[in-house]
């Protein structure tokens, strides 16, 4: 089960990298979204997967009954998703800000901080 997910994660990473290498920073942000999905899945899958047994303790018991899913990666992934959203929102705003002040979405043309040699921006 995990192996198939590992392959899927590979596809996610490959597409994310491809998008992040694009010149258009909107594509870069799409790549970022895919990448954080891949990262979350990686943490989740590394903790091994279990079908149909959420990490809950039934009423009346002191510990989960039988084998349940690994709770730790779930907790990590949960916060990672929310932080990933924060990062995404910030990146999106940053991109928009860059577009509105520089007038372009192409990262090659964004050279305010590191002008081309010869002084042109």
């Amino acid at each position, binding site marked *: 089960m995990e192996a198939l997910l590992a392959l899927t994660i590979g596809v996610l990473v490959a597409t994310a990298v491809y998008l992040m290498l694009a010149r258009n920073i909107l594509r870069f942000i799409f790549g970022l979204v895919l990448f954080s999905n891949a990262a979350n899945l990686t943490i989740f899958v590394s903790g091994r997967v279990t079908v149909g047994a*959420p990490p*809950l303790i039934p009423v009346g018991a002191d510990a989960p009954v039988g084998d349940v899913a690994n709770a730790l990666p779930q907790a990590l992934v949960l916060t990672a998703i*929310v932080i990933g959203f924060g990062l995404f*929102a910030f990146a*999106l*705003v940053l991109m928009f800000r860059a577009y509105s002040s520089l007038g372009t979405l192409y990262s090659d043309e964004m050279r305010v901080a590191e002008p081309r040699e010869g002084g042109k921006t």
Partner: protein
Amino acid sequence: MNSIILRVGTRYLAGILVLFSLYMLIRGHNEPGGGFIGGLIGSTSFVLYAIACGTAEARAALKIMPQNIAVAGLGIALLAGIAAALFGDALFTGQWLFLNPTEDSKGLPISTVLIFDIGVYLVVFGSILSIVFAMEEEI
């Protein structure tokens, strides 16, 4: 988005969503739910509201600036963590108080853990709304 049906419907839906988000927050310790999920649901209600009726109205309905809510949430979570130190435990150790304990139940629990989760709720709620409102207004 100037549909009267949508606007009226959203108003009710938003109210229901907020109630639902609080329910998810409270039950989070024992069932799926909690501060993160509650905060996300709660913010969704106001996002819907803003889409349907405009951010000005959504802000008016919310009354408090969302950034303030987020920072207040962070403060509440921090206080809940520091409270443990007052009882002589390490920081962020949960402190529990059970009201009306009886033979077969421990009673109604009040805990710093719940307060911490409320802080998380407010942080998520406030942060998302401040981004969404600002983007709706500025872009």
